[in-house]
């Protein structure tokens, strides 16, 4: 009896629903981020972690577990489109090429006072095949902090300014098992045009990387052809040998057995970009960097996404006509000599899909706050919300799983205690796949 009472008390205080249960959520206002649709006093029906119904008026079915949030406001789970979450300070800039400037003088000092003892081996270069998913632990304790800031999914890249930045992946920030954690891997390939003053050098290097990959493929294609020819000939030769005896031996000598080229994982990774299987995320903020990135796109017909794009509003037509999307950030407003430029607004006005990202490794709490500042300076609420929900889902290539509150999608959403772009609004609860993963206490 006592146990039953205790069990009843425990279950009544904590209302965690089971993930495979049918859940019904009532809310004061739902920003669906699905073509700007807003539902007032409506409800969401969730079955097995997916949204199955959206009601204009709340009518919970009998079998459903009802969560009453009728004084709260719901927005879709936020997606941070470019981050280094899960990487810690010791990972930063370690493997960059050229080495960080302070390293050289320090080495000199060490050599003077301690001889060769403290000298490090030259830092290895990041290669195209490096995957961010190999380095990030799915159960990292920091992810809880990002959940409390309303982020449910994030694209995670290796923190580096190197030209080749490796392969990023899209993560779901709450996962019981590693298979849940990786939503999309690979999610693209990062190249960086910023970080070096000499843009043309980086452009030339990247062209060389692409051309090498193309040459590599040609080599393999040639090998394939030769091998076929050789095998065919060998077969023919054997048949002939049976028929004519000694004459066949001469024919065999005409084509030699081709030598197998060496496998190169880097070239194979780059070929995925050239085959348009994954997008190329090129970090370019200044106008010359952006133009170099557009040139690369013309030359190799890659799927281009610009990361940064601070000066992209100067050439909006060139970008919109080529259907290039932009992951903007980390500033929401540019301050130039006393004037403020709302570049996100200007890009969106030209029908360019823009995602807003934090570019951060340890703090995403300002994603909503920064957009609040952009809203104060003229960005509309719907547009601001789209830049962290619908647009990043589209750009990262997961639009039918996350990014909005719509039927058939994963039930990721954030519960706020006020309107989304107000200074005093706080994140109260976060749900991923219909499961409560964060509660503000």
């Amino acid at each position: 009896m006592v146990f039953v009472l205790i069990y009843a008390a425990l279950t009544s205080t904590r209302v965690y629903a089971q993930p495979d249960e049918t859940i019904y959520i009532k809310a004061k206002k739902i920003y669906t981020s699905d073509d700007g649709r807003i539902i007032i006093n409506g409800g969401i029906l969730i079955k097995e972690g997916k949204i199955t119904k959206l009601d204009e008026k709340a009518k919970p079915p009998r079998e459903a577990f009802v969560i009453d949030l009728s004084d709260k406001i719901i927005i879709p789970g936020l997606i941070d489109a470019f981050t280094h979450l899960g990487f810690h300070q010791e990972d930063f800039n370690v493997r960059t090429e050229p080495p960080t400037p302070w390293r050289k003088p320090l080495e000199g000092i060490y050599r003077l006072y301690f001889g060769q003892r403290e000298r490090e081996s030259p830092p290895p270069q990041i290669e195209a095949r490096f995957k961010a998913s190999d380095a990030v632990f799915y159960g990292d304790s920091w992810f809880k902090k990002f959940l409390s800031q309303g982020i449910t999914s994030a694209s995670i890249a290796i923190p580096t300014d190197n030209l080749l930045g490796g392969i990023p992946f899209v993560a779901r920030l709450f996962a019981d098992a590693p298979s849940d954690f990786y939503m999309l891997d690979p999610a693209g390939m990062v190249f960086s045009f910023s970080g070096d003053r000499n843009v043309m050098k980086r452009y030339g290097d990247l062209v060389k990387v692409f051309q090498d990959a193309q040459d590599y493929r040609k080599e393999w294609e040639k090998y394939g052809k030769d091998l076929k020819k050789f095998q065919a000939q060998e077969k023919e030769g054997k048949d002939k040998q049976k028929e004519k005896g000694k004459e066949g031996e001469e024919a065999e000598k005409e084509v030699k057995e081709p030598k197998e080229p060496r496998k190169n994982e880097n070239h194979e990774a780059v070929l995925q970009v050239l085959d348009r299987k994954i997008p190329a995320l090129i970090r370019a903020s200044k106008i010359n960097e952006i133009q170099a990135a557009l040139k690369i796109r013309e030359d190799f017909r890659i799927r281009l996404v610009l990361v940064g794009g601070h000066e992209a509003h100067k050439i909006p037509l060139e970008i919109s006509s080529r259907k290039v999307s932009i992951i903007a950030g980390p500033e929401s407003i540019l301050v130039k000599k006393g004037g403020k430029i709302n570049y996100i607004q200007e890009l969106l006005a030209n029908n360019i899909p823009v995602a807003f990202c934090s570019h951060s490794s340890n703090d995403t709490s300002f994603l909503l706050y920064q957009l609040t500042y952009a809203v104060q300076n003229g960005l509309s609420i719907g547009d601001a919300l789209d830049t962290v929900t619908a647009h990043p889902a589209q750009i990262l290539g997961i639009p039918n799983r996350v990014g909005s509150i719509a039927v058939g999608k994963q039930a990721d959403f954030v519960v706020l205690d006020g309107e989304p772009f107000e200074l005093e609004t706080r994140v109260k609860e976060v749900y991923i796949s219909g499961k409560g993963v964060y509660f503000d206490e």
Partner: protein
Amino acid sequence: MRKTMVCLGLLIFFCWGISLSGETIAIRGGEIHTMNGEILKSGIILIREGKIVDIGENVQIPEGIEVIDAQGYILYPGFVAPSGLFTPEGIRNFESFSPQASALDRFDFHGDYIQYLRGGITSAFVAMPANRIISGKGAVVKLGGGGKKALLLREEAALNVNLGKEAILPPMTDVFPAPVSPENPLTPSFRQFPSSSLGAHWLLHELFRFDAYSGELARYFQSISHSLEKAQEQDLPLIVRCQKASDILQAIQFSKTVNMPLVIQGAAEAYRLADILKENHVSVIAEAHVRPNGLFTYQDSGEKPAWGKHMRSIPALIQKGILVSITPDDERYLPDLFWVAQYFQKFGISEEKLVETITINSAKIFGLEGKIGNLGKGRDADILFFKKARGAPLPRLEKVMREGQFVYEE
């Protein structure tokens, strides 16, 4: 005939005279926040020669004057920035103590300050750069063109003193202790004193003991001691820039001995000493680490306290009833003063209270509440026209009036 001519002449003269002296403007219909503790729902302001003549809900508007319709606007007094250098590139002062230096000497009265006017800042305290122990005297000015006569509000408004990290920054120059004379033979130059925190405190006390100097040294220190003595006579507020609780306590001790009013600038750890600050009537110019466009990355040095704690300091001081004025820690964000102050709505402080921190509170620190920072009879007509925008979290600034004239319109 002659009489009628005279009469006519007089009449014309009078009419002309009336039209000249009566350059009165009325603002009607706005929600006026006077910052004296009252909000007029639909008030009327009468302005003549750049000053407010009358303000209230039942004010008679004289016939035939220009009336500005402010229906739907929220009117605030012009903001007063409590600290700023107002130079395009940062300047540094490498003298250990230069109380005779004045910020006015380098302030450009004909400069273009449109970015500050756009942010609603009509008056500001021009400070001396925070390097070494006594940086000099700052002045309160109005911003926007008009020349020195029109803009200067107070020539010597406060004395900038630094404690903590700034006071012991290594100076670039090595100086002689005094001019060479038989009493002071040529000796090797030494590094400017102080180089430690304790040395800074000792020097501050020593500099105010005017009778201690004698001989050649006295002549060398003449200008310094003269200006310090003058500052003490004028009862200038001491603006002491420090962050640590221990430095704040030392500053309070020092202000008691020299008998000058104290203002703490920076004050990251002031939340620990809220009671002591309240007891000693110390006001605070709080530096907020708010980055409006979201760049929060800064290198965490040992001197700087934890970011989260710092943010809690300002709301704690306001709730205690201490005179707090808010300024961004980086001058680049000064044009966004309204946003920086309103950020603290997150901690449950009301919008009205936060506007007070950047208007009347700043004016009170420099003793100018009779002129700027609030709307009342006899005050300057510096009025900001805010309008509530749909969807935006805060009202937007659309027009800025300085002394009865619009200096910025969106």
